């Protein structure tokens, strides 16, 4: 469990979080009162009026208008309070400040990609500066996903062919979990990532170093991209097929395609597989690989190819 | 519970035939309510998509054939009339008339389907088909295939009801011929009538919504 958290919640790392938690505790303690009243009451009666013999007379109390009004009206008033409170917090959650920084989020089976205005892009790792409102503009490439950061108490579905938004302002630095909470198939529970909240300085530094290529040699960079861009969620390198074909010994391998032809894996084929995966599909697999068009840049694809050559 | 006469059609758990008939009628009306809600889902789709794409609906409805639709409306209303009259004929114990009126209803229902068939095949021909099969190019507004998805599901479900109705009418027709009914007991024909009128009633709404409103 989160060391800063309580039994119920992870730590409060966003301005809204304390609001949500406060209402939660209100709606927790209030019913605990009623809970004790109702179940406590009935358990008490069950003991107090336990059957002692056949000849106890039970009075035919049919109703008591006062009591009945009481337990209709009081809960009604209480639920009104709960509603208004929940509603107000919801409004705050919904209206982002106008100066919020915008990041584009794309969900697809089964990873998240983040595109920054400055050209930087990441996969499964959202880096944001602390104390600055961030507005996410989200859409999906396939089915519905849902973007959830428990530490910030925010969640929003990510729909195909449509934008939804979600905003937050992180109040402390650190790493937070990021989950997909709308069931989206086999990799649903692997569609998780991290939100890194860093200081303004670190953020700017990160931004500049991430907008261009990398200093690493291509094979190593490719290996990182293999992890970072979530190829590994469908391709593994130990020789077993997973969702997609194994990458062990992929370069130079002969593949049978569903269109009947056979092909030898070379640079062009790999590039095509990444950019237009549905064009040529390997026999025995579903055509479900997502396109990386717009997610991977040219030099990144080169790096990946360089890396794949090394996987023997 | 002393039943003076115990007619063969009276089921054991009813006190008398009046109770039996009323129960059947109530059951039938409840069933009709579920039918209204079944179609209701499609009407909801219609309303929502129409609100989203008003121009497209206006443009797309023009390709439907109003004379054919109107003709079918006349046919169905007439069949409703013959159905209602067949019940009345049974009420006055005119079995022969009942039979002829039921046959007329069946024929009118078949006419309805034939006309629908011509409409459908014309649309198939032009590629005015639902969803991904839509190939027609005469409509400029966005998403016309949605209109045809709705058109075909609504009229298709309605057509299915016509077919089921015909089966049920055939069944009561056979029972009438077999002398199962009399002015004392004709509940099955009456229930069939209620169902058939509902089918008519739904068409009364489908026709303007799909064909006429521009």
């Amino acid at each position, binding site marked *: 469990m989160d060391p800063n958290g309580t039994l119920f919640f992870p730590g409060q790392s966003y301005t809204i979080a304390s609001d949500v938690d406060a209402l939660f505790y209100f709606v927790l303690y209030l019913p605990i009162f009623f809970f004790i009243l109702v179940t406590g009451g009935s358990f008490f009666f069950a003991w107090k009026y336990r059957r002692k013999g056949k000849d106890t007379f039970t009075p035919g109390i049919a109703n008591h208008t006062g009591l009945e009004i009481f337990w209709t009206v009081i809960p009604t008033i209480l639920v009104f309070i709960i509603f208004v409170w929940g509603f107000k917090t919801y409004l705050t959650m919904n209206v982002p400040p106008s100066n919020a920084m915008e990041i584009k989020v794309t969900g697809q089976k089964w990873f998240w990609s983040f595109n920054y205005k400055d050209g930087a892009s990441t996969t499964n790792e959202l880096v944001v500066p602390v104390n600055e409102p961030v507005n996410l503009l989200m859409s999906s490439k396939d089915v519905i996903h849902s973007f959830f950061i428990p530490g910030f108490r925010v969640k929003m579905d990510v729909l195909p062919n449509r934008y939804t938004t979600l905003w937050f302002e992180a109040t402390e630095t650190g790493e937070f979990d990021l989950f997909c909470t709308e069931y989206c198939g086999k990799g649903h529970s692997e569609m998780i990532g991290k939100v890194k909240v860093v200081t303004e300085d670190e953020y700017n530094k990160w931004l500049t170093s991430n907008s261009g290529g990398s200093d690493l040699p291509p094979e190593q960079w490719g290996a990182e991209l293999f992890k970072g861009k979530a190829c590994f969620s469908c391709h593994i390198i130990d020789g077993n097929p997973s969702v997609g074909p194994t990458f062990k010994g992929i370069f130079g391998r002969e593949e049978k395609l569903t269109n009947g032809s056979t092909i030898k894996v070379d640079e062009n084929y790999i590039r095509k597989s990444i950019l237009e995966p549905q064009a040529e599909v390997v026999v025995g697999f579903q055509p479900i690989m997502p396109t990386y068009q717009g997610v991977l840049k040219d030099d990144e694809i080169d790096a990946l190819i360089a890396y794949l050559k090394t996987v023997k | 519970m002393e039943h003076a006469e115990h007619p063969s059609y009276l089921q054991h758990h009813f006190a008398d035939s009046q109770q039996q008939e009323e129960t059947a009628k109530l059951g039938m009306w409840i069933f009709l309510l579920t039918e*209204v809600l079944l179609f209701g889902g499609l009407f*909801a789709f219609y*309303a929502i998509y129409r609100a*989203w794409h008003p121009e497209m609906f206006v443009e797309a409805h023009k390709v439907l054939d109003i004379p054919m639709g109107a003709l079918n409306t006349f046919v169905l209303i007439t069949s409703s009339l013959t159905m209602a009259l067949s019940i009345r004929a049974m009420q006055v114990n005119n079995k022969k008339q009942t039979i002829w009126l039921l046959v007329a209803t069946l024929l009118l229902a078949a006419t309805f389907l034939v006309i629908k068939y011509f409409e459908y095949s014309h649309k198939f021909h032009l590629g005015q088909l639902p969803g991904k099969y839509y190939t027609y190019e005469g409509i400029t507004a966005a998403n016309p295939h949605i209109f045809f998805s709705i058109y075909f599901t609504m009229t298709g479900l309605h057509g299915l009801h016509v077919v089921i109705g015909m089966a049920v009418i055939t069944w009561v027709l056979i029972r009438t011929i077999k002398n199962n009914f009399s002015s004392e007991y004709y509940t099955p024909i009456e229930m069939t009538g209620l169902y058939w009128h509902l089918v*008519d009633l739904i068409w009364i709404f489908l026709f303007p919504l799909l064909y006429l*409103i*521009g």
Partner: protein
Amino acid sequence: MTENVHSHHHILPLSLYFTIAGILFVLTGITVGVSYYDFGSFNIVVALTIAVIKGSLVALYFMHLRYDNKLYGAILVLSLVFLSIFIGLTMIDTLYRGEIQPIEGSVINENAIIYEQNK
């Protein structure tokens, strides 16, 4: 369960059936006729009013609602009430998307309704 045991079935005069059918034919003619005139947004009102009148005639006379137990009519009305609840509450969603916070992003797919709506 009612008092009037063996109140005999209500037999309506033949003329009534023919009159109702006649009115239905005429109304069908009218609704087709007026559809060639454009009343703007009133088109739907006119067409549906006529349809409701026709529907009521079928329900009241062909289906005998007028002479039968009121419960049956209530059932029919109930179904319509719940249908309107269904359509109404769904439309609270579909008609008001993006009201509090209009969404501005480049169009992903022109077909998608959200863009159609914001035009």
